[in-house]
């Protein structure tokens, strides 16, 4: 085994390349040990412990179920844990309790209606879902957006990242026994949601970002609202520092718990904060910029050890980075239209319907039949708060997609649980599950 850093583990940040101090670079055979680390058992079968082929001291291993109705599994996640006393050996995440067939539903909805469907997947960051769906449709349509639409999308996506991370801070705090953090996290998130309500009409499931632009322009005085959010949340993040970051109990619970190496993270296709916590500076906003992320200045935060504490501090600091982006966006927000002028894609303004027959027909067509999208297929990916959120869209030339597949980051990231929990304590399982940040609506779709 050689002590060398893989080429992809160093990345450009504003402070130059952040070199990863690799722990032992493991061989390819050992990298796949997660295949053996996953508990491969049917979900409904009672288990004879003698059938389980794993090294153990005594015949003391047993299978216990955590969830699906467990207060700390973030929705309906069931973990089948094979435990030896307090130590977890193997894990099998059992999912599907929230499966509502949204990908099938998408095939029955027009592209206009599609955004209302995808926004319900990741309910903590609905705007990212709408964004990736809209970008995929626009990619097939070949529509170019007016600059204001692009910057509004960026503003909203970053605000949503702040609210999503705040929500994570809250639930993670609760999982570790810090009820105050839960209250604070929800309190700050509410500010962002109030702004969303003002802008989009709803606190969640906005259907705001649509193919062709956004649903409505920003409300009057939005700069002030946004600045208040930025100021308050930024100040409060330093209070969280006082509350959690420096607190000995919190650090004891999170440091060196649920460790992951960069090689393992890449092998398991993990993305987002969980990948960055291992030292891989991979953020789609920086690496493969979309919208106008190459015109704003921000840093990609990386951890070093890939443990729960790294994932915590990455998310906390990403709130600050997002606020940095939001302030730049608010400053640079261009004037102009907030959706494309192509009447085949976007409905005409309400006032035009009264005076123009043409506008009325377009309005009727867009909302009944929808618009036709040229044949083809596209894969589009954005950086959601949880990682790479992708949309694979296949169009057969009609107004409904032939297939819409969402590459859900939570769904893929959940695969890391058997590896993260292995060798840890049952008590830490709660904290580690939380640090993966699975949103079950997105996992099950």
């Amino acid at each position, binding site marked *: 085994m050689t002590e060398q850093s893989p080429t*992809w583990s160093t990345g450009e940040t504003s402070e130059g390349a952040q070199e990863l101090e690799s722990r032992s670079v493991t061989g390819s055979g050992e990298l796949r040990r997660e295949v053996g680390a996953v508990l491969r058992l049917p979900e409904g079968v009672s288990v004879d412990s003698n059938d389980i082929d794993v090294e153990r001291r005594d015949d003391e291993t047993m299978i216990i179920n955590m969830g699906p109705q467990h207060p700390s599994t973030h929705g309906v996640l069931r973990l089948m844990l094979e435990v030896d006393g307090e130590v977890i050996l193997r894990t099998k995440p059992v999912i*599907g309790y929230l499966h509502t067939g949204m990908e099938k539903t998408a095939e029955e909805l027009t592209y206009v209606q599609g955004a209302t469907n995808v926004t319900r997947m990741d309910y903590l960051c609905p705007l990212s879902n709408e964004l990736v769906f809209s970008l995929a449709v626009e990619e097939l349509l070949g529509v170019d957006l007016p600059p204001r639409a692009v910057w509004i999308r960026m503003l909203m996506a970053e605000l949503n990242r702040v609210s999503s991370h705040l929500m994570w801070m809250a639930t993670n705090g609760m999982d570790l026994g810090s009820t105050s953090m839960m209250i604070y996290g929800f309190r700050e998130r509410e500010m962002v949601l109030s702004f969303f309500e003002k802008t989009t009409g709803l606190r969640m499931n906005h259907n705001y970002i649509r193919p062709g632009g956004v649903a409505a322009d920003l409300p009057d005085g939005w700069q002030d609202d946004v600045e208040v959010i930025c100021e308050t949340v930024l100040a409060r993040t330093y209070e969280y520092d006082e509350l959690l970051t420096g607190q000995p109990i919190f650090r004891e619970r999170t440091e060196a718990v649920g460790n992951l190496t960069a090689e393992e993270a890449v092998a398991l*296709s993990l993305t987002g904060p969980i990948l960055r916590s291992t030292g891989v500076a991979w953020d789609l906003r920086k690496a493969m910029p979309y919208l106008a992320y190459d015109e704003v200045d921000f840093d990609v935060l990386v951890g070093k050890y890939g443990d729960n504490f790294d994932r915590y501090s990455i998310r906390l600091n990403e709130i600050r980075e997002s606020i940095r982006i939001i302030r730049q966006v608010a400053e640079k927000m261009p004037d102009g239209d907030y959706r494309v002028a192509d009447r085949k894609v976007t409905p005409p303004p309400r006032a035009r319907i009264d005076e123009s027959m043409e506008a009325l027909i377009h309005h009727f067509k867009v909302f009944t039949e929808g618009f036709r999208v040229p044949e083809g297929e596209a894969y589009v990916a954005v950086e959601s708060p949880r990682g*790479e959120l992708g949309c694979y869209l296949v169009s057969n030339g009609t107004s409904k997609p032939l297939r819409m597949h969402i590459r859900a980051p939570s769904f893929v990231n959940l695969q890391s649980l058997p590896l993260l929990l292995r060798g840890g304590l049952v008590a830490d399982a709660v904290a580690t599950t939380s640090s993966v940040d699975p949103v079950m609506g997105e996992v099950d779709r």
Partner: protein
Amino acid sequence: MTAETRSRGSWKAEMTFPSRSEYSSVIEEYKSHGYEMCVDLCAVDYLGYEGRTLPVDVVPQRFEVVVNLLSLSSKSRARVRVQVPEDDPVLPSIIEIYPGVDAMEREAFDLMGIEFLGHPDLTRILMPEDWEGHPLRKDYGIGRVPIQFKEAPGPR
């Protein structure tokens, strides 16, 4: 790249259409050429849509398995699209090359009925274990809630 196309992002991916027998070796080759991560694997059912554009030497089949690969080092994407016939929906598993496709292959098996040979735990992942059929197939009914219409109450 003009300012307009940048606003949409650049989603260009290198496209490959291997046959089923070449599939594993093509994936392996990509891995050795710096595509470290298998970002996504999904299956598409093209039943009832014959006219899709494919390279001339590729025979269209009902199913298509789409594998999206990502290179972190060269910041590029690649897409591998394999045709899978309806009467024999079987494909070798690439879990040995990319362990991360575990859940994705299970999902494709569960919802589309593609069998991945060599997968250690090819069971349903989203649907209940005893479910019959594969819901994302085009010939799988979407299901409807029957509505009972009642007669309007007559004059009294």
